[in-house]
């Protein structure tokens, strides 16, 4: 990938989704959806509640399979390799595509052990390597300075915003290529939300970020590309500035301008 004048790689698709349909017990929840997630940029999924954006997000790292009765049809390609298919291990997929949840869910362990969890699961047990990677992950999540003196304290003692950054650090520690974030700041106060948004901006340097948000303004602030979902369908997908200034679909315009939602 050649660099453009901004020092950023030319936009190239990282995740190619074609005709993805998710259904629960025979009832269609989302789809069919086709779009290209651009590498090393931020893509936001917006839409009113219940429109299927979270379901779609979870199908990108095969987390929907945990729900009994869920069926996924269509294809998702990560760097031209499918992630669905017989013989494809969801565990390997989830190591390349990480996820941060709406409500922070740190383990009841120490801060260090939380971040190191994914590494230990992957067989890494050299203490120096673990310590180095934990520090790196916490730095990337803009949490290192705040917690470096209390790495052995319980993660549950952190504030809400810190816990969410801890969960981001935990996801980053396994060096995924794509980071999925399901309304990461919806449970946080405005200051913590601002921190998370700045973090997303920084992270998009090195990671492909897909973020679900019910807050349009947040999408406008952080995202390069935006997809608008409505009632289980993808209505429009384009660069953020286009979606917010010159949307092609009238439903998109109605949502953006606040006529419903």
């Amino acid at each position, binding site marked *: 990938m050649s660099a453009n004048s901004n020092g950023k790689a030319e936009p190239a698709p990282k995740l190619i989704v074609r005709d993805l349909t998710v259904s629960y017990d025979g009832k269609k929840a989302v789809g069919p959806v086709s779009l290209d997630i651009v590498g090393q940029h931020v893509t936001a999924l917006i839409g009113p509640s219940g429109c299927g954006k979270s379901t779609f997000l979870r199908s990108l790292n095969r987390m929907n399979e945990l729900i009994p009765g869920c069926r996924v049809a269509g294809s998702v390609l990560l760097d031209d390799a499918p992630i669905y298919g017989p013989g494809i291990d969801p565990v390997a997929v989830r190591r390349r595509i990480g996820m941060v949840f709406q409500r922070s869910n740190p383990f009841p362990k120490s801060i260090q052990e939380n971040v190191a969890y994914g590494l230990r699961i992957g067989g890494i047990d050299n203490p120096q390597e673990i310590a*180095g*990677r934990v520090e790196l992950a916490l730095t990337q999540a803009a949490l290192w300075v705040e917690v470096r003196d209390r790495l052995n304290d319980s993660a549950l003692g952190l504030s809400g915003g810190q816990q969410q950054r801890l969960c981001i650090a935990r996801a980053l520690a396994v060096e995924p290529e794509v980071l999925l974030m399901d309304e990461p700041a919806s449970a946080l106060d405005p200051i913590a939300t*601002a921190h998370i948004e700045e973090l997303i901006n920084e992270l998009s340097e090195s990671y492909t970020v897909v973020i679900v948000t019910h807050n349009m*303004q947040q999408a406008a602030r952080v995202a390069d590309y935006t997809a608008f979902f409505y009632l289980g369908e993808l209505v429009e997908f384009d660069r953020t500035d286009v979606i917010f200034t010159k949307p092609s679909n009238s439903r998109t315009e109605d949502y953006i*301008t606040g006529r419903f939602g």
Partner: protein
Amino acid sequence: MSVTKPKRFREVRNIREINGFVPFGVTAMSQTRHLFVKSEWSYPPVTTPEGAIAMARQKTIGTKIAVPPARPPKLTLAPAPLWHRAAEWTLRVLAFSAVVAIVLILVFIAKEAAPIFYSAAVRAEVTMSKMWVPRLWPGYDESASIWQPVSEIPKFGIWPLVLGTVKVTVVAMAVSVPLGVGGAVYLSQYARPRTREIVKPVVELLAGIPSVVLGFFALMVMATWFQRLFGLESRLNALVSGVALSFAVIPLIFTFAEEALRAVPRSYVEASTALGAARWQTISRVVLPAASPGIAAGVALGLGRAVGETMIVLMASGNAAIISASLADSTRTISATIAAELAEVVFGGAHYTVLFFLGTLLFLTTFCINTIGDWAIRRMKIRLGGTA
């Protein structure tokens, strides 16, 4: 630290900058913040990766230290170790233990009881008809069902034992159901939460008392009291052992009933009160029926326990296998019979076989009580709430 303009400095992809148009929703404040963020970043001169990490370790301006991370070698994660699959299979196999146990229990006690049907040596002394049908024994005036396995002519009439089990169980349930349910009603409907915190563990203590201790208490203490109180002829009888048995059953019924009563939604109580019902009417017409599946579960469990309990009756019932309607007479239950006589039997003999037959009978009875109880409870739940 001087701020040089590094090559990788991010452009502000602020929408305002793109075409000068501020769309609805993007506030001026967020734009300002973007610019503000830009100035907070600092890039110390970096020559080596170690230097980068060392710089990050020092506290610098703000909390945003965008040090180009000195990346360690690309992370390679190993797949799960092989022994995990073996462990999962072990889990699956071990999970069958309960099924295997139940099957083995039935098989092996039935196996030892089976000779009653096919062994000539055993059948010479005892058959099903000899056990269940009263017959005329030498030395007796009329035909009767008599349990006298150790005598010149061994007699294996089961009815005295069955009657004994029934008597003791009836006494135990008659005492424990009112007490258990009544106490549960009080604790769930009238008592303060603080009281509940204290009383619940205390009743669990009662549940934890070993049955041999209850039997001991019945034998040493209660028997004397009852005899004095009621003027009974025999010290150890169905009444004493039944009451002592109820001590073991009460905590079961109490715990289940209390949980069930507490689980009744407040909305039911409020609706009933709003319709003008008095407290006692709400409790008896709404709360108790709503809790009936849970209470029934407790009663079924208690019934099973009462039928099968051994030590209490062994110690307190007097161990006289007679047929009598009176609760004041000594009696013998099936379980106590097995416990008392198994030590002295000849392995493989008729007596031994009959005792195992009694054990099988007991097993099947409690199995039936459990199954019928489950079915009844499920029906109750359907009747109440539409789904089991």
